[in-house]
């Protein structure tokens, strides 16, 4: 086989072949060949592997990666249909805020595309709009957020809860993707976009809370439920709706396990002020419980994420089970 003739033949029909191929160093890392001598006998496998990586995902992903990506995909559907329904609702989102929610809805749609492509045939099917009950009533339609599509403040509060759950879920799932660096990086690239969404939704909520230009309103530490900072401060006093059933407090609370050692993976509440065994309050002059908690977002485990999200799907659906 003339490998280089093959590449040049492919280049004729696919000028982007070189972009699809891994950088050469990554190729060696992916195949465990770093620092090893390559023998002729190894070439056929290496070449077929390179093309699999460039053109598709014909090899099955490990089950734990599939689980992380399908949970992420489920959350993206939850969010996509929420924002899409909001944009379709009459007189809900003011004209000045529509561009933002179109961006957010489209970002979620892109994330769905990326996750489906990574999962291939292992991707869950599109659950469809009807699977979701954004009232928080598990299919009854009569949960505490039933008025969300007619009440902008309520709509924003639920949006914040979804997006913050998503940010915590990606963070919690990332360590399970380490075996596949490209999928890991894609997930990180989605994760930070979700955090940008959360920041913006929180900014909008501050403006709505006091009926003023969103970016002119500071966070109100005495009313973080309605007027949060663009970052999570402590547990945000339980989030937008701490006293309802379901409550948003779980979005900012601890996952499982909630405690662990400096190099363990665990999921404390967002009010956590110790990282890698270091007490942030004594490590930086001027740090407070609020600022130290704000400086680090916390992750959530898959089971806790599902228990939060399950409130927003029909109880008959297998989504988030």
């Amino acid at each position, binding site marked *: 086989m003339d490998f*280089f003739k093959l590449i040049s033949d492919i280049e004729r029909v696919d000028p982007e072949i070189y972009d699809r191929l891994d950088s050469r160093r990554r190729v060696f890392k992916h195949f465990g060949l770093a620092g090893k001598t390559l023998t002729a006998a190894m070439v056929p496998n290496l070449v077929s592997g390179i093309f699999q990586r460039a053109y598709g995902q014909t090899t099955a992903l490990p089950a734990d990666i599939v689980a992380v990506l399908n949970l992420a995909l489920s959350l993206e559907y939850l969010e996509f249909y929420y924002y899409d329904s909001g944009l379709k609702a009459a007189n809900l989102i003011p004209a000045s805020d529509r561009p933002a929610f179109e961006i957010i809805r489209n970002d979620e749609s892109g994330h769905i595309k990326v996750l489906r492509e990574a999962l291939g045939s292992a991707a869950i099917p599109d659950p469809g709009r009807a699977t979701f009950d954004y009232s928080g009533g598990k299919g009854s339609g009569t949960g505490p957020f039933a008025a969300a599509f007619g009440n902008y403040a309520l709509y924003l509060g639920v949006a914040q809860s979804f997006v913050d759950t998503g940010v915590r879920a990606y963070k919690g799932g990332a360590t399970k993707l380490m075996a596949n660096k490209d999928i890991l990086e894609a997930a990180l*690239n*989605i994760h930070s976009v979700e*955090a940008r969404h959360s*920041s*913006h939704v929180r900014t909008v909520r501050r403006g709505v809370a006091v009926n003023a230009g969103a970016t002119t309103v*500071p966070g109100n530490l005495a009313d973080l439920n309605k007027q949060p900072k663009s970052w999570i401060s402590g547990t945000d006093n339980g989030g937008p709706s701490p006293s309802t059933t379901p409550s948003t407090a779980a979005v900012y609370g601890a996952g499982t396990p909630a405690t662990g050692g400096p190099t363990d993976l665990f999921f404390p509440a967002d009010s956590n002020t110790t990282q890698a065994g270091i007490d942030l309050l004594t490590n930086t002059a001027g740090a407070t419980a609020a600022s130290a908690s*704000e400086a680090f977002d916390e*992750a959530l485990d898959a089971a806790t994420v599902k228990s939060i999200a399950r409130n927003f799907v029909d109880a008959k659906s297998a989504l988030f089970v």
Partner: protein
Amino acid sequence: MPRLPRRSFLRYSGAGLAVGGLLLAGCDDDDDDIITPPGTIDLGSGDNGVLNYAYALEQLEAAFYAQVKTGAYYKGLAANSAEKQVFDDLAIHEQIHADFFRKVLDTKAIKALEPDFSTIKFDDRNSVLGAAKSFEDLGVAAYNGAGRYIQTAAYLLIAGKIVSVEARHAALIRDLINYNTFVASDVVDLFTPTSGTSAPGVGSGTGKEKSMTPNDVVNMANKFLKDGSKISASNIK
């Protein structure tokens, strides 16, 4: 050896393929060690390299916001204004990050870096916000691009905890500059649905943030570091 473009590299080593038992010349894991440029601080390799990389960027951000707080723009902000709260928060968050990495790295930490912010006008709102946007966006792209080099799961989790906070910062700073630009095409590969009624996932683009490689990030960061404090990420891989 000098760096060859990928295409030339493939053709170049093609000669070797004809020979049995070939050894891809100079292609072991260390093949393109860029010798750490003279006078730069090597961030190191492995997890310590990534942690020092983060430490360097957090130092830069912390120093920037500390200087913002001494400038006329910040000092002119009303006591209870949104912008004052933002810069107070950003200053302490970044200091907490920098101090955290110094403590984690302990004896492996690089030295305290001396910033050069001579291109930033600290009495001018646009200049300060523009620089803040650059630093925050750079931080997000840097963490996203470095995740793949982290070996220890607990450190990846820590990086994840910080990058989302940087993304929150970046989004708000961008909204302060121009409302509704919390996500835009300079930092995110925007997704465009095929039509107004497209099903989810149908369209062009990805909605993913754009990563930057450590070398590209360092080139940007070095513009804000004095001679003797410039850094090299050539061993992060």
